[in-house]
């Protein structure tokens, strides 16, 4: 079990904890609630902040529902239990501009976006971060399972000790400057420990289920949200195979993601062997409004382009090196060779083994090949050509 001195050490703030005001970004979930509880226990002057990001009632189309939903209320109840001040930040318009609009446009481009990273990058680690500084805080703590360590005088990010909860994929865009100010005390904990601390403090969120999916997308129905955000810009089109044959119709490319197998709406093909009869979405042609399907081998991708990279290591002389790379939060890292252009924040990554179903809009996060818990940085996948790129569609 964690002891409080480890938390104080992890906080990396000089002198007595009572001399430091620490802002905790509280979502109303168990993780950020326990973060606040541990910091109160450690003796810091804790202030809780919760972001109001969108109109909850409108998002769920519930008439008369409060704009805030129950999570803000949970954060408030936890703060009250802990005896700390708690405030709500109205970031509805910033969130709409910087996260939701980007999310919709990304789908319209045929990509698969990760709004949680955009939110961390913009609203949370920019606006809330500034507010925490304005409130005279020494640091801002969040409930992420990730570790911030000083090695050889340099700040670095490491995966959390609980591999099943590691959130490094969502935090690759944390800049070195932000890293000076943010803290992640839960990086030391397992989820079970977090829940037992919540129980010990009598927090009402101790058994609250983890949040799933994207906060502003009810029941994972992202396409409905995109349709609401961009009415009129989504048109039906054809589902075609690699030979350009029309297999069916669709109601909008936003309903599909690269690598998708289920729910495409066209059956397998007759007269082909079993392995090749299963069809996957292999490309989204937003120009012609076509969804292109094909057998799995068409998804194979050898090399990707990564843009807007954020590096958490010192810029090194080598521009080509071996890395572990994660292409999805839930998948295991794979090995590849990266060529970096530090000046343009660009990188090209060649996989040792071809990868299947890589989608633009997702993040590629790099880990140290010698120490897989060490996060080197990451960026956005802007090109992920698979075999579909070689096909010419004369009829389509």
């Amino acid at each position, binding site marked *: 079990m964690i002891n409080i001195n480890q938390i104080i050490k992890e906080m990396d703030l000089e002198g007595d904890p009572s001399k430091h005001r620490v802002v905790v970004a509280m979502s109303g979930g168990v993780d950020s609630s326990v973060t606040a509880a541990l910091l109160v226990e450690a003796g810091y002057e804790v*202030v809780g902040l919760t972001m*109001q990001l969108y109109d909850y009632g409108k998002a769920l189309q519930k008439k008369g529902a*409060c704009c*805030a939903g129950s999570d803000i209320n949970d954060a*408030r109840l936890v703060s009250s239990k802990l005896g700390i*001040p708690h*405030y709500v930040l109205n970031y509805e318009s910033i969130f709409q501009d910087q996260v939701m609009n980007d999310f919709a446009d990304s789908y319209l481009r045929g990509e698969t976006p990760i709004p949680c990273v955009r939110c961390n990058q913009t609203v949370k680690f920019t606006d809330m971060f500034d507010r925490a500084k*304005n*409130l*005279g805080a020494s640091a801002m703590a969040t409930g992420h399972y990730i570790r911030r360590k000083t090695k050889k005088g340099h700040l670095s990010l490491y995966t959390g000790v609980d591999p099943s909860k590691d959130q490094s994929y969502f935090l690759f865009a944390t800049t070195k400057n932000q890293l000076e100010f943010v803290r992640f005390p839960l990086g030391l904990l397992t989820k079970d420990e977090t829940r037992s601390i919540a129980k010990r403090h009598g927090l009402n969120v101790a058994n609250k289920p983890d949040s799933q999916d994207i906060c502003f997308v009810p029941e994972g129905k992202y396409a409905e949200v995109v349709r609401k955000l961009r009415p009129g810009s989504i048109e039906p089109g054809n589902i075609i195979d690699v030979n350009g044959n029309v297999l069916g119709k669709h109601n909008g490319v936003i309903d599909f993601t690269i690598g998708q197998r289920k729910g495409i709406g066209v059956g397998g093909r007759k007269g082909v062997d079993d392995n090749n009869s299963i069809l996957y979405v292999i490309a989204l042609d937003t120009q012609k409004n076509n969804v292109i399907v094909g057998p799995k081998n068409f998804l194979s991708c050898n090399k990707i382009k990564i843009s807007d990279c954020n590096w958490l290591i010192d810029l090194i002389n080598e521009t080509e090196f071996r890395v572990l790379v994660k292409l999805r939060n839930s998948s295991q890292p794979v090995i590849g060779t990266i060529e970096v252009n530090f000046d343009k924040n660009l990188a090209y990554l060649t996989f040792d083994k071809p990868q299947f179903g890589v989608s633009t809009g997702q993040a590629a996060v790099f880990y140290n090949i010698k120490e897989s818990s060490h996060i080197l940085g990451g960026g956005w996948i802007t090109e992920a050509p698979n075999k579909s790129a070689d096909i010419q569609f004369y009829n389509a």
Partner: protein
Amino acid sequence: MKKKIYLDYNATVPLLKEVKNSLIDCMDVGPLNASSIHYYGRKGKEIIDIARTNIGELIKTNKNNIIFTGSATEAINLLFSNFDTIVVSSIEHLAVLSSSKSDHIISVNKDGIVNLNFLEFYLKKLTNNSKKILVSVMWVNNETGVIQPIEDVVEIAKNHGCLVHCDAAQALGKVKINLEEIELDFLTISGHKIGAPTGIGALIYNDKIHLKPQILGGGQEQGMRAGTENILGIKGFGEAAKFINNATENNYSEVKSLRNYFEDKIKTLSPETIIFGEKANRVANTILMALPKIPGDLALMKLDLESFSVSSGSACSSGKVSKSHVVSAMGYDNLATNSVRFSFPPNDAILNLENLITKKELDRLARCWSNL
């Protein structure tokens, strides 16, 4: 914990000691359902009648014209449900703006005073189609404290054959309200703004005008608001009204001198501060101000962390701070998210009860403001 300095009396006035003691006595009387026919029922009725009398005396109206509701908001909703066409000012409280669903909106000037010429012009245009029209203008604005020319509003409205409602939630206890001297058809008030508990409001209505109730049931409040009477709320409202009524005339001078002292300090320490409605006739206890570069929610948080309880005047129940529609309506759209309201006790009687706010603390508050 540092002593909290409360300067948010426009949000709510702490329960007065006299009121609290009367409530404890009331709780000891027994089971009080005023609709029961037996001894306790009669006791309950008597308590309600005394409260009604006290409130009637405070605002000089027939006690039988008072309908108790759960809040001033409910009273407004009850009234508005009887009208299709409601003309409102742009600085009304959300209770009026939301429940009226009105798009007949009368602007205000830079000082936050309703534009009477525009009201006149608008009503002339509107009354051509002979519908029953209600004009609703607040007596005192909750954010700025600016007193509205309610006599003139009544005169103009009457000249055009309209009925008039006045939201007096912020006026009660801060200005003299005498319904014998002003021809209002409807007035709404709230108990907790004068030291009664929350959860009690009232609609004062002109009994010549037939209203339909919104809440149906056992016919309480002359059939206008069904539901077992909130005896403790009503008792508290009545006692608070009696307390205010017994206080001497012209009893705002001490509050005003504290407010002005603070305002002068602010002007000296941070001359860039904008005070809204400064040139207008304001109630003695309210200041709404803004610093051009400081968001209101930041100011609120920093002052709260320094133990000062103040308000942005526009927080929703979720706690998020939104743009002030009042500041926007006054033509300061760029400052609408910056405004912060400081509200002192509504009158000297309540100020002296508490005796909590000292000049030393106001000095510290002014310094905090200038260091935001």
